[in-house]
């Protein structure tokens, strides 16, 4: 299994890297809609070489190097994404586990159906409704994610709660569903039955036998959602007027600021590839089958 993992995983990552880049370069520079042919790659090579040396080109609109804009924006987006992830991962998993433990009872129905409903809604729709509820009617939270200059950690966090909620809602459904189906499968398995039959307390069975096996697929899902998250960020950052990588790309695209657009998308590609790599790595570390295989 270790061998298989080692053979397959790098291939996946390579593909993930190649995908966004090849397409983006083709569309941007040459208005080609498709294509990963050689001359493109050569041209692309020099550009990437410059990129790796910190030269991302010069913005057409701002007439200034692109790099500081992209780095700032990436930092802002990461803050937003981090808030969303920190909220959604534990709550999503908890939701899925609770649903599975109450399989086909009303609580399961509510979590599953609710999760599914909010997952399929566009972010700007949930965003608008949340802004109306918490920003306009209750006046609990600020409606734009622009904190005053030099704001401290908690002020920034306060401004980020509302923008992170629509992302939270979309991801919640996915994560809860994966956790739920993982749990159901684990609860139904032979090893769980054995554990119950040998007289272990229910709590121990859940913690030591079921959860461990159930949550593995969930980790992969969380990582693959990074791709979604990037698309979501474009929308959310526009809605909340937040200076992140999504709104940077959006503004660059509208203004035909190609160097900015390319740098933004390449950055996203790298983030995506790194996230995929980390997820693959985490999965193989956490998977006891792979670990056991090595020890033997």
């Amino acid at each position, binding site marked *: 299994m270790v061998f298989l993992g080692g053979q397959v995983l790098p291939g996946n990552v390579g*593909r*993930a890297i*190649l*995908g*966004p880049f*090849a*397409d*983006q370069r083709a*569309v*941007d520079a040459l*208005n080609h*809609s498709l294509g*990963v042919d050689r001359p493109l790659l050569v041209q692309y090579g020099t550009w990437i070489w410059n990129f790796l040396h910190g030269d991302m080109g010069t913005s057409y609109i701002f007439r200034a190097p692109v790099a500081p804009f992209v780095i700032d924006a990436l930092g802002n987006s990461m803050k937003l994404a981090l808030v969303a992830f920190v909220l959604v991962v534990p709550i999503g998993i908890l939701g899925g586990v609770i649903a599975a433990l109450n399989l086909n009872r009303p609580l399961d129905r509510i979590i599953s159906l609710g999760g*599914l*409903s909010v997952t*399929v*809604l*566009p*972010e*700007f*729709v949930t965003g*608008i*409704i949340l*802004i*109306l509820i918490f*920003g*306009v*009617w209750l006046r609990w939270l600020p*409606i*734009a994610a622009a904190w005053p200059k030099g704001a401290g950690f908690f002020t920034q966090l306060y401004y980020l709660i509302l923008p992170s909620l629509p992302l939270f809602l979309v991801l919640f459904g996915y994560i809860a569903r994966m956790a739920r189906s993982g749990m159901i499968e684990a609860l139904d398995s032979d090893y769980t039955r054995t554990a119950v039959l040998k007289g272990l307390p229910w709590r121990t069975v859940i913690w030591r036998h079921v959860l461990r096996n159930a949550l593995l697929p969930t980790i992969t899902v969380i990582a693959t959602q990074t*791709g*979604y998250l*990037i*698309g*979501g960020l*474009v*929308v959310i950052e*526009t*809605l909340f007027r937040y200076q992140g990588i999504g709104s940077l*790309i*959006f503004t660059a*695209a*509208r203004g*035909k600021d190609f160097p900015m*657009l390319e740098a933004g*998308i390449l950055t*996203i590609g790298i983030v*995506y590839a790194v996230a995929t790599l980390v997820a693959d790595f985490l999965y193989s570390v956490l998977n006891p089958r792979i670990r056991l295989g090595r020890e033997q």
Partner: protein
Amino acid sequence: MSATDTPASLPAPSAPDATRRSPWGEVLHSLSRSGTFLTGLFILLFWVVCALFGQHFVPYDPLESDIINALTPPAADHWFGTDQLGRDVFSRVIVGSRDILTVAPLATILATIAGTALGLVIGYFRGIVDDIVSRVLEAFMAIPVVIIALLAIVALGTSKITVIVVIGLSFAPIIARTVRSAVLAERELDYVAAAKLRHEGALHTMFVEILPNVIPPILVETTVRLGYAIFAVATLSFMGFGIQPPSPDWGLSISSNYGMIGGGFWWTVLFDALAIASLVIGVNLVADGVHGAFND
């Protein structure tokens, strides 16, 4: 109907049915008893009726402005209030279903046709064709639709056609993948071998012999994609791509009015947001019902 010749294409009913319906009759019967499906269908049909006949029964012209009565809150003569140009929000919400219900289904149809053809070809020929095409498709699937759309719109300019093509082509790989795996199972069956022995051409075997038997998964995938297409079209028109003013489209209305919600003008966006939400959830309920009917 050749689909009925091979019951293998549909899962056999769990218990032998005394009345012996045809497989398609079975599906229709189970759909007609599915509350999820019927609820979704009701919502969907409501909006289809609004899109087709809405302009005949709405109280005001959705495009006619009345500046003196701009931004009036919901009241008896304007049920949902008026927007910044004094246009009746209720009429706009009803008629606003038209553009999204044109663009999203067309994009879905394009995705289904392209995806089915591609899936049939790679599933039937397998080998090197399959390897290459599948890798390219996976690379495409890794990029969020919003990003593809941004790039395409930079390259091609914004129009409804661009949006249809972008969404259609970015969903096609997903459908192709589903069709491919269905074809892989079918191509090993005897009727395909028989067709080959009769010296039928590859095209005939693919489109006349195999296609009718892989309709169920295609149908399920298409309804699911329709939900995502509505999601994507709404998001893109919110971002200012595709559907253009003065259309009363929901996403467009939200994007031109959400700047004012800080001032408490909630009615200019809430009803559009709820309309999108209901349509997306409706389509997803239909998709859920169709999925259930084919997999029970």
